[in-house]
């Protein structure tokens, strides 16, 4: 079984964010980047499926040269090959444009299964996987907790809202977006890191966008406060005393 995992490199969660001078994105120079966490779960699911069913895991990432570090990390965890779609202009491509880049690279590989995270930690649109499936003309299912390969197809467990779940039978090839928490993430071993150096990383150049964007991000800014927050300061003991006052007289739970 050939499994392709589409991953994204995003700013670290704890990174201090500064808005870029043009007000359209964030300053990228001082940021540290990591694998999008939901995509890490997609990679984990792929590695476990390979361990159970055999085959190959190929990781795919679009972005500038820096994304190679994320691809190498995926190789160190156990992916067999990596494909880098070199593109410095992802910010000027919308979901359809980015999914088209991925679709072009996927078609060449014709995998049995494509996995990706359910959304990205930066844009959080949660669409790239679904749009990619539509462009490829293959079925998809989202927010998947578990995958069981059954001969020609598979049965997946979808998370619904309010603690509900559902099993869905699907044919292959197909695309799934993976929810966090279904598996435990593995760390790269020292042996894995050494091995990664010998694995193939293919770089393909991104084709120029064939169509204009359908939607555009025009401005980013700090959110306005919804409530007037009273900030409490002082030593831990002083803060604790102030909070107890609030709990007693304002919130009235003491």
């Amino acid at each position: 079984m050939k499994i392709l995992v589409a991953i994204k490199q995003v700013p670290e969660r704890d990174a201090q964010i500064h808005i870029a001078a043009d007000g359209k994105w964030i300053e990228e120079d001082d940021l540290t980047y990591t694998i999008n966490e939901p995509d890490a779960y997609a990679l984990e699911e792929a590695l476990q499926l390979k361990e159970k069913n055999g085959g190959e895991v190929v990781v795919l990432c679009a972005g500038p040269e820096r994304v190679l570090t994320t691809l190498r990390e995926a190789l160190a965890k156990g992916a067999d090959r990596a494909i880098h779609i070199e593109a410095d202009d992802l910010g000027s491509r919308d979901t359809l444009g980015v999914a088209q880049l991925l679709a072009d690279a996927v078609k060449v590989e014709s995998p049995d299964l494509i996995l990706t995270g359910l959304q990205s930690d930066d844009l959080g649109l949660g669409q790239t996987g679904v749009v990619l499936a539509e462009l490829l003309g293959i079925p998809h299912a989202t927010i998947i907790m578990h995958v069981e390969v059954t001969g020609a197809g598979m049965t997946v467990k979808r998370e619904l809202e309010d603690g509900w779940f559902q099993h869905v039978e699907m044919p292959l090839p197909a695309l799934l977006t993976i929810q966090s928490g279904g598996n435990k993430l593995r760390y790269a071993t020292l042996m894995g890191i050494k091995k990664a150096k010998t694995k193939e990383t293919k770089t393909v150049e991104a084709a120029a966008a064939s169509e204009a964007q359908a939607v555009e991000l025009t401005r980013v800014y700090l959110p306005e406060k919804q409530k007037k927050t009273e900030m409490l300061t002082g030593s831990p003991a002083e803060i604790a005393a102030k909070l107890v006052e609030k709990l007693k007289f304002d919130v009235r739970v003491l």
Partner: protein
Amino acid sequence: MSGVLVVFEQTGGQWNRMSFEALAAGQQLAASLGMDCSAAVLGQGVAGLAEELAGKKLAKAYSVEHALLAAYTADGYVVGLEQLVKQTTPDYVVFPHTYQVRDFAPALATRFKQVLISDVIAMHDGKTFVRQLLQGKLNADYTQTGAGPCFLSIQAGTFRADAVEAGTAPVEAVTVQLEAAQIRNKPGERFRESAQTVDLSAAPVIVSVGRGIGEQDNIGIVQELADALGAELAASRPICDAGWLPMERQVGSSGQTVSPKLYLAVGISGAIQHLVGMKGSKSIIAINKDENAPIFEVADYGVVGDLFEIVPALTKAIVAAKE
């Protein structure tokens, strides 16, 4: 093209309540643009639901009936809605930002060479739609630049369902063509893993813990605080994903929705998926090391600092106050 079309969500004849929030958004958008607002419901045996929509201020209430829409599938909904949108030619198609919408709406938009502007939290002038980036740290304005219908999904809690305007609308049955072979997935029955034994929705006081706690062994200090307050212990998704607390203690869009008298958030940054589950709390206290954490946007009282110093001090002070 004309107007705003709001697509309702129902399962087994029961509304997903977020649909009414989407309708409030749709009505407001239509009013600001001087357009008509219509609504649609898909499924099998949904005539009664369409009748209910006919009691809202709408130009039309569309009922889209087909045996192959009885159970939700992405393929069925994409094919059915593609035909509805082509027949009714709306300028805007508005959905509630539910898990189901996330499953099919991006594919539907792709059929029109459009991109869904998802989880919208505000809109301006019918042209600018606001959504959050980077786990709620930033807001972003999006505008549609394409020529087709503009597809939007509305985040939970953004618009008030009770703001929906009542009225009288004609019901129109819309016929769509669907073949069994077009539907590639076979969905099973919905099920729950186990009976939920913790009902956080009824708890008057909740102490909730997030990523900031660092590791499982540290949860003890938050449990002690919850015990001192007589509170239920809850968590954000990453804590439950890691298996540090059971899933039934998760607050957020994939967990429970709560509205306690007090919600004390410890080491929770406040991504929107968490905020939608707890922002109805009467009072919110947040303790977090990052002064820019989005949790402070909804908190009544905020403490920027090291939770490992503040939480034990607070527990001690509460115990002393109770004596």
